[in-house]
């Protein structure tokens, strides 16, 4: 993976003193951990328990990555962080389906703050471009949607 993501690797992680991360001989990528945690059932054995602790730590670390820096700020930053961490740690078959509560919290926050994640200015010239492009998008409307023509 990842030859294109050089910008990410340049960033140095500020809080290295965080939770201990086990370095087994095995690879430590998040995806591998999730895959392992998923493969072993909850009650399996120490290995899976250890993985869970480890996954927890990794999920916390993921929050420090530049990709999510902006998402964590703003009115719904907290709700985002909780939902995202839950999702990362989710070992459910439909990933995230054990995260209903944090998802609903994020959803409610966005409903209350519709612009929580929108980049304010950026879209303006986009929309102008759009209107120039108003191509041949012809639709056939239902009769109820047509403007009434005044009969004289």
């Amino acid at each position, binding site marked *: 993976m*990842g030859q294109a993501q050089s910008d990410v690797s340049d960033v*140095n992680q500020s809080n290295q003193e965080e939770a201990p991360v086990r370095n087994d001989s095995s690879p430590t990528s998040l995806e591998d951990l999730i895959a392992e945690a998923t493969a072993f059932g909850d009650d399996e054995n120490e290995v899976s328990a250890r993985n869970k602790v480890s996954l927890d730590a990794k999920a916390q670390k993921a929050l420090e990555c530049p990709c999510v820096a*902006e*998402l964590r700020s703003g009115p719904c930053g907290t709700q985002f962080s909780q939902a995202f961490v839950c999702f990362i740690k989710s070992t459910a078959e439909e990933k995230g389906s054990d995260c209903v509560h944090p998802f609903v919290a994020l959803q409610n926050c966005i409903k209350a703050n519709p612009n929580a994640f929108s980049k304010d200015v950026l879209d303006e010239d986009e929309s102008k471009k759009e209107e120039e*492009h*108003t191509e041949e998008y012809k639709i056939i*409307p239902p009769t109820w*949607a047509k403007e009434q023509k005044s009969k004289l």
Partner: protein
Amino acid sequence: MGDSTTICRDVPLLLSSFVDAFVDFSFSGFFLPQKSDSNSPKQNPNQTLTPPPPPELQTRYPSPDRLVAIGDLHGDLNKSKQALKLAGLIDGSDRWIGGNTTVVQIGDVLDRGDDELKIVYFLEKLKHEASKCGGLIITMNGNHEIMNIDGDFRYVTPSSLDEFRAWANWYCIGNSMKNLCSGLDKKQRDLFEGIPRVFPGIRKEFHEGFRARIAALRPSGPISGRFLSGNPTVLVIGDSVFVHGGLLKNHVEYGLERINEEVRDWIKGLKGRFSPRFVRGRDSVVWLRRFSEELARDCDCSALEHVLATIPGAKRMIMGHTIQEVGINGVCDNRAIRIDVGMSKGCGNGLPEVLEIEGDRNQNSSELRVLTSNPVYLTRKYNNPTMKTPEQKEGLGFLIPEHQPKQLEVKS
């Protein structure tokens, strides 16, 4: 240090699937498996220059032990669930309990009702549940899917526009969340790219709704591309041919696989804006009524006979599209089975009925039965095309009440 680098390398992809799951959940209430799930093979999120070839679209299937065919649903989620319950496919909490049953939905999920996307998402959820049990749900393209992808919105309801607006709202929030991640260096395509803001001649209050509908359903739109492009337009399962309108000889000559692939490619946006010719017009595969006219004498049985003869193993054609007020029925010696009962409250508000086919591979026979919610009949059962009985009435398969001591074993 190296460790956090490893973690951050994965985060853009994880964020992307998180956002997808969140958008699905916020709109539909369901958690659907995401394309970029961690249990799928790893891929670089930026490696999108050469998209993988679309998955093969299967046109022919062997006969399953049990098959249930469901007619036009037209935006009525309640009736859709009733139909599924009738066949014992979902339980009280709408989970799949159909085991290894194969389900064919004959198309026309869209239009005439307010819950179109809810049905689309619900069926998607069920598809995953079914596949875990060895079952299979196949949704097909009807003329209303084709029309909507084409921008023909004549049969849209006002409230359906609200549903599309709600969907578009969550979808755009998801896009802006992804755009905040610097690691996903490709900016999300604007949902409304190229779509006008105003539609002359159309009342203003609906403009936004139509924009959302176009965005979702146009070729390669997020809804059409994700949920409709995998729909076959023609299917052969065991000895039954499934098609929304009907097949003529020239369609078979054109090639069933070719029809499916060309429709798929068009919906994926690889063939321009307008639908292929064979899905447009009264003689097209999704519009034809030649074998589904309610009056048996209006059906062209000899044409049907010829068409079926050109499809190896085919004994009957199963169609939707034309509302059968009498319920599911067969004509032309039951070589034409018509399963659109007009169940949607947006057209007909008929009682849900589904067709059940049980196959017996050893005896090379299949048994057709109608499962109905009509209290007049518990089940209605068809005789076999090759076994004519005096009771057989014109235009209708004959009915055998449930309490009949012996069911007809049909050899076909």
